[in-house]
C-alpha cells in the first residue's frame, strides 16, 4: 500500500470542506487514510449526505477524459466524408451546438421516415442517401413531388411551425443521414439565426421544386421526365452507381412498370445510362441533360446556404 513511503496528506487548501470533513472521520492509521496519503484513492463516500466526493486530481482526469472523448466524437462527425451541405454551411459555432443533438443513422431503400398526416418525430439531414417525398393522390397511389439529398433536410414543415408531415418521405437511395428529435430541432431553430435563414431559403427551393415537378408531369413525355428524375437523383446521391428498382421508380413516378422499362431502355440504347439488375449509373451526363425536359435544374449553393 506504500504507506511507508511517508507521502504527505492532501494539501488542505485544495480540498473542499465536505471532503475535509469526511477525511477527518476516517480512522487514524487505518487502511483508507494510508491509501489516501499514498495518493492511491480517487473518491470517498460521504455517508452524511449520501454523496460521492471525487478527489481533485481524479476529477480533473475524469473531466479531461470526457473532454477528449467528446472532442474525438465531434471530430469524427465533423470529418465525416461529404457531410450534409446545409449543416456544413452553418457557422462553426452553430454547427458545434447542433452536433450533440445529431444522431447518425443508416437508412435502407424503402424506409419510411415520415408518413403523410402523421406527426414529425425526427428531422433528417441526408449525407449520402436520397429521400423521395410522395404526395398521396388516392388510397393506393402517391406521386413523387420532391427529392432531398445532402443539400437539404427532411422535415421542413417543422421550420414553418407545422408539426405534421404533408408528404410521405421514403428512402430512394440507401445511405447515411444525421437525425435530430423534433422537439430539439424546434429549440435549435429558434436559437440559430443562420439555420433559420438557410431553412427558409430551402423551403422556397422545395416549393419551387414541387411546382416544377407538377408542371413537368402535366406537360412532358415520360422519357424526358425519367431523364430529369435520374439527373435529380444523381445530383443528390454521392455514389455514381445507384440502386433503383424499376418497380420502385414506376411507383414514385406513378406510371406502369412497362413505361419505365421502355424509357430506360431507350436512354440505355443511346449510351446515356447503364441499367443492370437494379443498378443504375449515369454514363453521359450532358447527353442525359439534353434528353431531359427543361424542368431539370441542378441545385446551387444559393438554394440552401
Amino acid at each position: 500500500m506504500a504507506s511507508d513511503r511517508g507521502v504527505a496528506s492532501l494539501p488542505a487548501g485544495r480540498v473542499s470542506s465536505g471532503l475535509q470533513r469526511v477525511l477527518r472521520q476516517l480512522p487514524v492509521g487505518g487502511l483508507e487514510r494510508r491509501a489516501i496519503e499514498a495518493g492511491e484513492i480517487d473518491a470517498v463516500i460521504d455517508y452524511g449526505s449520501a454523496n460521492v466526493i471525487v478527489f481533485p486530481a481524479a476529477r480533473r482526469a475524469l473531466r479531461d477524459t470526457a473532454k477528449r472523448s467528446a472532442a474525438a466524437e465531434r471530430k469524427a462527425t465533423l470529418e465525416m466524408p461529404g457531410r450534409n451541405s446545409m449543416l456544413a454551411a452553418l457557422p462553426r459555432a452553430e454547427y458545434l451546438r447542433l452536433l450533440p443533438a445529431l444522431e447518425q443513422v443508416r437508412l435502407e431503400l424503402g424506409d419510411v421516415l415520415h408518413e403523410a398526416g402523421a406527426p414529425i418525430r425526427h428531422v433528417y439531414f441526408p449525407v449520402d442517401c436520397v429521400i423521395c417525398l410522395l404526395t398521396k393522390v388516392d388510397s393506393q397511389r402517391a406521386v413523387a413531388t420532391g427529392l432531398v439529398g445532402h443539400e437539404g433536410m427532411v422535415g421542413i414543415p417543422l421550420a414553418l411551425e407545422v408539426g405534421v408531415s404533408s408528404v410521405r418521405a421514403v428512402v430512394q437511395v440507401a445511405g447515411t443521414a444525421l437525425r435530430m428529435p423534433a422537439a430539439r430541432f424546434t429549440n435549435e431553430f429558434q436559437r440559430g439565426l443562420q439555420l433559420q435563414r438557410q431553412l427558409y431559403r430551402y423551403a422556397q427551393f422545395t416549393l419551387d421544386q414541387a411546382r416544377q415537378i407538377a408542371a413537368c408531369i402535366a406537360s412532358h413525355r415520360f422519357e424526358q421526365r425519367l431523364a430529369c428524375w435520374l439527373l435529380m437523383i444523381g445530383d443528390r446521391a454521392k455514389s455514381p452507381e445507384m440502386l433503383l428498382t424499376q418497380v420502385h421508380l414506376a411507383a414514385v413516378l406513378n406510371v406502369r412498370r412497362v413505361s419505365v422499362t421502355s424509357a430506360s431502355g431507350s436512354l440505355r440504347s443511346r449510351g446515356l445510362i447503364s441499367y443492370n439488375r437494379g443498378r443504375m449509373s449515369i454514363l453521359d451526363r450532358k447527353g442525359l441533360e439534353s434528353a431531359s425536359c427543361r424542368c431539370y435544374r441542378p441545385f446551387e449553393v444559393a438554394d440552401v446556404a
Partner: protein
Amino acid sequence: MTRRTPKASRARPTTVVVLRLYIAGGAPNSMQAIANLEAICAEHLKGGHRLEVVDILDNPRRAMADGVLVTPSLAKLSPLPAAQVVGNLSDKKRVLLALGLKPHGK
C-alpha cells in the same frame, strides 16, 4: 518470479474466489486497480474467480450498503474469511495475502 513453486502458485481448482472491486468511473487509480487486479488474477487464479466491478459514480447506494468508504477498494467475499484491500492494488503482496494466496518465492 524466477522459481515457481507449484504449491504456492496454484489455487485449489474447486474454489472460486469471488471478488468485488469498487471504482470511480475512469479515474486514474481506478483504472490502475482494474489493470493490476486483472494481471494478478490471470497469473494466480487462472480464471478460477468471479469479479464484479461496481462504479460508485453510477451506483453510490450499492457501495454504501456494502460499507465502502473509499475507491478503488477491493473486497474478497468468498471463500471466507472476507478481506479488503484499498488503493490502486499496486502492492501485489498485499493483494495476494488478501486473496488467501502466498506470493511466489516464499
